[in-house]
Each structure stands twice: as structure tokens, then as C-alpha cells.
């Protein structure tokens, strides 16, 4: 296609592409300087520099405790959603019955159901059974949101893997779980890992469910951020945001590296 377009129109197209990319990246770039602003308002560029919002974040319990809750929650979500998601992906990949297509569709549903609906439904159930505010109840809800990502990445890994290898291991006397752990898993570990990262980020970034069910001691950091953005803007949000941006940058680079190795990433 390259030669089919005149140089002039290609330059024009690049200029447009540059503007679109700027639009995509600009907000991420703005967050960092805001975190070091001395101003209590949304002035940009900041009038002067200071660390006061980081200091506030690390000294105000509402903020750092909610961050701890979010991190613990994301970790627990990864620990639970990964094994059950990969097990389900394995079943869906190897099952030939029509049933398995239904299972796969059922496991992907959280991707398409609006989160507000899930949130009020789960909230209602949790209130009914008196489970609201419990840490485990949050983990379970986030696991539900994370499973589709683990299943999808797991499936894409299994598709590029030659199942005959597992058959060979089994015919040589290895048990099925043994063959999976020793032959299959090491070869799809890139996909499993990117599934884990998706699960982590999904949990960490989740807001809407948290607004309803992350109450009391188990308030998540995104819920605190949301409240502060909607009601009165507390610049501590910028400090938290920049921490999250750095975290997600590391995760993004990490996933891309895995993706290059296994072709399973996005």
C-alpha cells in the first residue's frame, strides 16, 4: 500500500495520526506533573512543585489503607481466578461436546453485562445474606470479573500449543494432571502470565462494583478516588493516579515483553 499513496498525502496522514496519538497519550502525561503540584486546585502547569500530596497520601489512613485493600484484593483475585480460569480454558479447549461452547460463552458474560447491573444485583444478594463488607465477598466479585480475561488468554495460549505433546506424555505413562503440569503449562506460561496481569489490572481498576459493595474497612482506593473526583477535587488523587500510572506502565511493558515471546499478548 505504501507505494500507492503519494508522499504528500502520506505526510498529511502521519500528521493526523500524530494528533490522534497525542490525544491518546496526553491525559496519561498530565497526571504526573499534577501529582507534584503545590496548588490545591487543578492548575496546569503547576505554579510550584511540592510533595505534599504524596505526603498526604501516605499519612491519611483513608488513602493508604484503601490502597492496601485494593492491592490485597487484586492479588487475591489473581490467585483465585488464574487456576479456575485456566482449568476452565483447558476444559473448553479439549471438550468436543456442544456443551463446551455454552460453557465458554457463559464464562465470557461478565465482559458484556454492564457493570452497574452486576453491581446492584450482587449488592442486593450480599445484603440479603449479610455478607456485605466482607473481604472475601469482594474477592469473589472481582474473581467473577477477572475470569473471562484468564479464560481468553488461556485459550489463545492453548490454541498455539500442540495437544499431541500432552498425549505423548500420557502414553508414556504420565498422568493427565502430571502431563498438563510438566508438558503443557510450561509452554503456555506466557499466556497464563498475561492472563494474571489482566486479572490484576481488572481488579485494581474496578470502580462501579466497589461503589456498592466495597464498604467499611474494605473500601477500595478507586472508590475513594471516585468520591473525591465527584464531590470536591482533592489533589491527592493526582498522587494516587501517578502511582497507578507507574504501576500500569510497568505492567504494560511486562505484557508486551511476554507477548513478543509467546505471541499471546494483545
Amino acid at each position, binding site marked *: 500500500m505504501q507505494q500507492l499513496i503519494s508522499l504528500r498525502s502520506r505526510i498529511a496522514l502521519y500528521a493526523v495520526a500524530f494528533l490522534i496519538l497525542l490525544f491518546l497519550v496526553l491525559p496519561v502525561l498530565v497526571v504526573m506533573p499534577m501529582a507534584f503540584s503545590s496548588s490545591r486546585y487543578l492548575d496546569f502547569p503547576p505554579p510550584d512543585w511540592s510533595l505534599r500530596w504524596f505526603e498526604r497520601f501516605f499519612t491519611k489512613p483513608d488513602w493508604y489503607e484503601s490502597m492496601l485493600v485494593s492491592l490485597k484484593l487484586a492479588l487475591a483475585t489473581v490467585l483465585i481466578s488464574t487456576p479456575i480460569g485456566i482449568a*476452565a480454558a483447558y476444559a473448553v479447549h479439549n471438550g468436543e461436546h456442544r456443551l463446551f461452547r455454552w460453557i465458554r460463552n457463559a*464464562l465470557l458474560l461478565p465482559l458484556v453485562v454492564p457493570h452497574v447491573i452486576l453491581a446492584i444485583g450482587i449488592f442486593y444478594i450480599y445484603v440479603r445474606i449479610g455478607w456485605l463488607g466482607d473481604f472475601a465477598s469482594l474477592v469473589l466479585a472481582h474473581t467473577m470479573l477477572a475470569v473471562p480475561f484468564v479464560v481468553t488468554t488461556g485459550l489463545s495460549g492453548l490454541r498455539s500449543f500442540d495437544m499431541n505433546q500432552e498425549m505423548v506424555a500420557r502414553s508414556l505413562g504420565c498422568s493427565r494432571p502430571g502431563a498438563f503440569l510438566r508438558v503443557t503449562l510450561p509452554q503456555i506460561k506466557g499466556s497464563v502470565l498475561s492472563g494474571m496481569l489482566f486479572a490484576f489490572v481488572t481488579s485494581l481498576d474496578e470502580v462501579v462494583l466497589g461503589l456498592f459493595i466495597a464498604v467499611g474497612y474494605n473500601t477500595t482506593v478507586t472508590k475513594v478516588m471516585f468520591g473525591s473526583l465527584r464531590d470536591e477535587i482533592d489533589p491527592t488523587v493526582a498522587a494516587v493516579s501517578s502511582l497507578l500510572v507507574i504501576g500500569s506502565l510497568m505492567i504494560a511493558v511486562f505484557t508486551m515483553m511476554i507477548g513478543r515471546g509467546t505471541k499471546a499478548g494483545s
Partner: protein
Amino acid sequence: MLALLSLPALAVMAALLFVPVAWLVALSFIDEHGSVTIANYSRLLADGSLFKSMTLTVQLALVVTLICAVVGYTLAYAITLMPRWLQTISLALVALPFWTSALVRTYAWLVLLQRKGVINKILVGSDLVSEPLHLVHNLVGTMIGMVHIMLPFMVFPLYAAMQRIDADLMRASLGLGASVFYTFRRVYLSQSLPSLAAGIILVFVLSLGFYITPAILGGGRVMVIAMIIERDVNLHLNWGPASAIAVLFLLSVLGLFAIVGRFLSVERIFQGRA
């Protein structure tokens, strides 16, 4: 035997998705005294403000989808023309916001779009406008924030599809005397159309469910369906009407996906992110 392996994951779905949604369906048919009724649904039709909110939600999603389609197609196409190293950088730049929390980005837009924000400073400074524009706490701000979140969902699948298009086909078309526009339409567009269609549906359906962006960048003026549901439950404890809205909302979303699912699997639609 194999099906047993999917049981834990299915159990989670059953407990946290099927049961709650089933409860909502049940609640939507019950009035405040506990007797069975369809009043919650008939009230939906009679309630003018709700109807307004529904049209607003659909219109907003349509505009966001249209912008994403045009902008996303342009960007994906431009990226395919770039030299290899520039492609890698560009794709990384598309992925960067994708990996950044939507809440963080919403905050950033608040900073950029406010009355004394960067965008307005540039616009006023370069004499493009005489006084700062109202870019946030309204529909415009909501739209900008939503387009920013949805754009990568459009770009990734489109880029993947465009990369597979054979440039020789176009050369052949041009060589046989077809015009550039005709060639683009019949050869290029037609081959990228499935991905464009998938992207459009995905962006449209996900845009219908937005809550955070309208709530913050809309400044209370952009009452989308998701916000009505939230308000009914949190503020008024109106479970019946809220569930009825939720059920209708869910049915339309699933209906859309079912129609598309005939042509494309849901998994493929979400390929961009996984």
C-alpha cells in the same frame, strides 16, 4: 470428566452473575407491598425523564461510536503505512492509555478540559476562540472522555485486519484501471469491514453501560441509564423500578451481542484486549 474442570469457574458465574441477575428479574415484577405486578414496567413507559435518559444514552453511544470508527480507522490505517519501528512505538502509545485506569484518565481530562485548563489556554492563547469554552461538566466532556477510553478497542482489531490485506490486490485493481476511491472501497474497505463492524458493535454496546465518565465529566448534567439505576438504588432504594430498567437494559445489550454473535464470536470481538 473435562466439564468438571470448568465447574469452579462456572460456580463463580452462577453465584455472582446468574443468581443476582435472576433476583433482579424477580424484583422487577414485585411492588413495594410484595405482590406480583407489571407496574414497574408500565411506569417505565410513562416516565418521561426515563425515556429522555434512554435516548440520551443511545445517542451518546452512537456519537462516541461514530467518532471512534472514523478516528480509529484513520489511525489504524496510518499505522500500517509506517516503517516497522514507528509501528511498534505507535501501537505502544495506543496501549498506554488502554492499560491506565479509566478513573485516572477521567481525572486527567478534568485537568485538561476545565475552564482554565491546558486546552482552553491554548485555544485562547492562539486566538482561536475569544473566551474559554465549556468543555467539561457537560456532554462534550463526557464524549471526549468516552472516546478516549473506547478508541483502543477500535484500533487494535482494525490494525490486525489491515495488516493482513495484500497490497498486490490493490495494485492489481489500480492497474486494471479502477480509480483510487473505487479501489479503496471495493478492495481495502471490504476486507477490513468485518473488523470495523466488530469494533463498532463492541464500542457501541460498551458505551451504553458507561457510568464513571458521565458521572464525573458530565458534572451531573448527563444522566445516562447507568446513573439512573445507581441513583434509584442508592438514593431512593427503589428496587422495583431500578430492576425493571436494569432488566430492559440487559436484554438490549445481550440482544445486540446475540445478533452479532451470529457473525462473530464474542471472544473475537474482544480480541483487542486479550
